[in-house]
């Protein structure tokens, strides 16, 4: 499996703002194995909740080319985007990872081999890293590493 990195920040907001999205296909399933989220804005005492969710449509975003972790690898088949202006359609009950923290904190999650967060093997389906809710409008910065 090839591994790639995608970075992204959400459009400023306090709820339902996607930082970055990965869209697979019937032949490719992106699987997130490493995730880091933080905030580069002036530190403030605010609470934030974010998560990784399964999506069925990609929404509208700024295209981002996944960067291979091994430079010799071919380009990813997964389509990535960040700073969504139109949110992806998320699957009800499809929250794969959810965390709440202070805006000042930095969060990292990493998984064992074979325990990645996968999207469905269906066209237009994928995963999104979303700011679910916050006590003030903010911009979060996220990095995900995924396999395909």
């Amino acid at each position, binding site marked *: 499996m090839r591994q790639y990195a995608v970075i992204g920040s959400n459009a400023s907001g306090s709820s339902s703002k996607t930082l970055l999205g990965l869209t697979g296909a019937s032949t490719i399933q992106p699987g997130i194995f490493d995730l880091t989220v933080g905030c580069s804005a002036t530190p403030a005492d605010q609470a934030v909740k974010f998560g990784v969710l399964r999506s069925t449509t990609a929404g509208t975003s700024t295209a981002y080319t996944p960067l291979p972790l091994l430079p010799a690898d071919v380009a990813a088949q997964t389509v990535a985007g960040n700073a969504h202006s139109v949110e992806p359609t998320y699957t009800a009950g499809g929250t794969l990872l959810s965390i709440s923290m*202070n805006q000042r904190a930095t969060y990292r999650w990493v998984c064992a081999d074979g325990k990645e967060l996968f999207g469905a093997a269906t066209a237009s389906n994928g995963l999104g890293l979303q700011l679910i809710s916050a006590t003030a409008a903010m911009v979060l910065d996220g990095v995900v590493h995924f396999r395909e």
Partner: protein
Amino acid sequence: MPRHTLLRPHGYIIITDPEAPTIEYDTHQCCHCGAHFAIIPGSGRLRGYCLHCDGPTCGAEACGKCDPLKRRLGR
């Protein structure tokens, strides 16, 4: 530094906050929906275990019936 460990965790979370102790958790992956959840003893959250899949479940009602993750992702 709160830390709750498993013998073979499926994932690991670390939250670093300049004004609070570092928080670390191991996570398990639900063998039905694929979600990861932190292991927090005493949280009151009921989890499950699927004998078919031989793995933990997240405790959500939808994951109470065996529907293996790989089959679900292929639909």
